[in-house]
């Protein structure tokens, strides 16, 4: 084992051009634990990026770390990557809670971190110089949906239901602020603890407040539970709006009798008209036997960017950070550039999309310029 680094070192010294030197990149992701089902999308996206980098002549050595969905595990993974593996940069993590913790560590170690999907606003609002975010923020999740809602109809009241995690609370806060700006009254607001088999008592209260639209922020499976129990209680607002995550998975869509007509904001869909989206979707489907969620495209993009920049900088962390700050990219995720604006640092201004479940499949329905189907508004009622 002790000889291995020497061999690598020798190989590095002997390599004719530093541009093609192998660079080490760390990956922190939720590969096991309750967040693993979505974590898998990130893993697969990164694997595809690794192949594409290789095809471009960039060979990266990935060091995989599993955060199991827990911030403290993510922190020790970051310690290890920064000090023991001496990576040029890190791509990760998945959830907002873990990423927020890891970002602080990355800044301390001055290790460039490209955050693929974690959308809690504060992550890129703390003056960090080494933290870059490809992902849109929770504020964007809410605003694109409410923009659409106010264009398509005249909702006057909104109920906001979110899980009590970093992602959920941050999403609910942004939704509330944006709704008030748009003149929509918040008649119900609550954060629930995820994973419960019974949300009926909460949903009864929502029903009592009789909102025009219902906005929900939930991870994977709770989305299905919430919609099932909404159907049970015959909750019928003008529209059900979900902020990505649990509301934009193929599994959610396939539960037709509860998911039809539900809107969800998302960062990417296979049928959006960005260059290479469809090909990526098909390739992913063929390779892994299931449809990718936006997380896969985010992670793919983050790894492609990190791979290219890190290889050009020959693994030097300062140069990697400078390269990330200076560059701009365009691909299946639309244009990407890390900018400072509205209190954000190194944040990509990403165009959000709205998708709607139509007959068990997602159609991209908003914004009109990128749509693949017409939105169905208002909610046609339960079948």
């Amino acid at each position, binding site marked *: 084992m002790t000889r291995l680094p020497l061999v690598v070192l020798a190989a590095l010294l002997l390599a004719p051009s530093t541009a093609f030197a192998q660079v080490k990149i760390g990956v922190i992701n939720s590969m096991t634990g309750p967040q693993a089902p979505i974590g898998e999308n990130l893993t697969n996206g990164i694997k595809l990026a690794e192949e594409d980098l290789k095809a471009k002549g960039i060979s990266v050595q990935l060091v995989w770390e599993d955060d199991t969905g827990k911030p403290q595990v993510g922190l020790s993974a970051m310690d290890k990557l920064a000090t023991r593996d001496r990576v040029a940069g890190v791509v990760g993590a998945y959830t907002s809670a873990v990423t927020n913790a890891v970002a602080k560590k990355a800044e301390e170690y001055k290790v460039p971190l490209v955050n693929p999907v974690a959308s809690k606003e504060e992550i890129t609002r703390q003056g960090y110089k080494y933290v870059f975010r490809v992902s849109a923020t929770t504020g964007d999740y809410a605003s694109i949906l409410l923009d659409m809602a106010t264009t398509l109809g005249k909702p006057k009241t909104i109920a906001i239901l979110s899980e009590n995690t970093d992602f959920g609370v941050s999403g609910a806060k942004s939704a509330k602020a944006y709704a008030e700006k748009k003149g929509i009254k918040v008649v119900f607001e609550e954060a629930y603890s995820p994973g*419960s088999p019974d949300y*009926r008592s909460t949903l009864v209260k929502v029903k009592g407040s009789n909102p025009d639209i219902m906005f929900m922020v939930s991870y994977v499976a709770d989305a299905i539970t919430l919609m099932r129990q909404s159907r049970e209680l015959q909750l019928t607002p003008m529209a059900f709006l979900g902020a990505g995550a649990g509301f934009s998975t193929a*599994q959610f869509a396939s539960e037709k009798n509860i998911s039809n007509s539900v809107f969800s904001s998302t960062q990417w869909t296979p049928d959006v008209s960005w260059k290479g989206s469809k090909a990526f979707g098909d390739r992913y489907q063929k390779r892994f036997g299931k449809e990718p969620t936006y997380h896969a495209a985010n992670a793919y993009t983050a790894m492609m960017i990190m791979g290219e920049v890190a290889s050009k900088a020959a693994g030097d962390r300062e140069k990697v950070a400078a390269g990330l700050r200076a560059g701009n990219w365009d691909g299946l995720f639309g244009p990407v550039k890390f900018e400072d604006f509205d209190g954000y640092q190194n944040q990509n201004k990403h165009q959000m999309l709205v998708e709607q479940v139509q007959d068990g499949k997602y159609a991209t329905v908003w914004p009109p310029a990128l749509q693949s189907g017409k939105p169905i508004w208002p909610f046609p009622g339960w079948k």
Partner: protein
Amino acid sequence: MTIFLQSLLSGILIGGAYALIGVGLTIIFGVMRIINFAHGDLVMLGMYASYFLFTLGNVDPFVSIVFVFPLLFLFGAILQKTVINRVLNALPQNQILLTIGIGLILSNTMMLLFTSDYRIISTSYSSGSFRLGEISVSTPLLLSFGITGLVTAILYWFLLKTDTGQAIRATAQDRDAAQLMGVNVKRMSVLATGLGAGLAAVAGALISPTYYIFPQVGQPFTLKAFVIVVLGGMGSVMGATVGGIIIGATESLAGAYISSGLKDLVVYVLFLLILLFKPAGLFGKSRV
């Protein structure tokens, strides 16, 4: 008033499933004095069993308990005979580590075999309901509550009226005395673990049409079952039944009147209060 009745009703109905999980745990504890920290993972196995019976064999989840119970009974019995039996006289911390370890092995094996994907059973009644005045009653919950009641009734009959059931209770009351009276306590331990595992699996199968299934789904149920068992009195079947319903109803009412994010807090405060006034639990006899 509608909110109160609606929450109380769904809380009690869901409490039925909790009770079943708790009863399984309490039987295992009663007979062997071992807290089975793998209990939630047995619930998870029950869920997977009913999932595969449903998707591959088209067996309705509620009917599947006829197969799931014997399957997991066998699994529990084998587990007891091969592994748990060896630590019966070991230090409590070793027993705890063993059952936690079994739980981890179970959930991670399932993850290796079936990936961490969420699996959903969608039956025609999964989100069905009917109205009772102002209240809507969930069809799957009501059905599962009915089956829980039936299973509990059979269990009580078994424990109270049959020789084997009485032998299990005798072992739970005093292992040494039972042995002196000619009860085969080793066999009772195997039976009790099988019974506990079977009941956990039945609860899993009953929850599966309204919940979702993934390898780590069990852990919260372990904790919940533990609370239910302590609340009702360690080893008391009656206590676990009542405890399960209390926890279900408290969660639901706390969700309605305080905040669904704080319902666990309310449950644990209630739990502590009951223990303050009845340290042995609601139906427990303090054993020294």
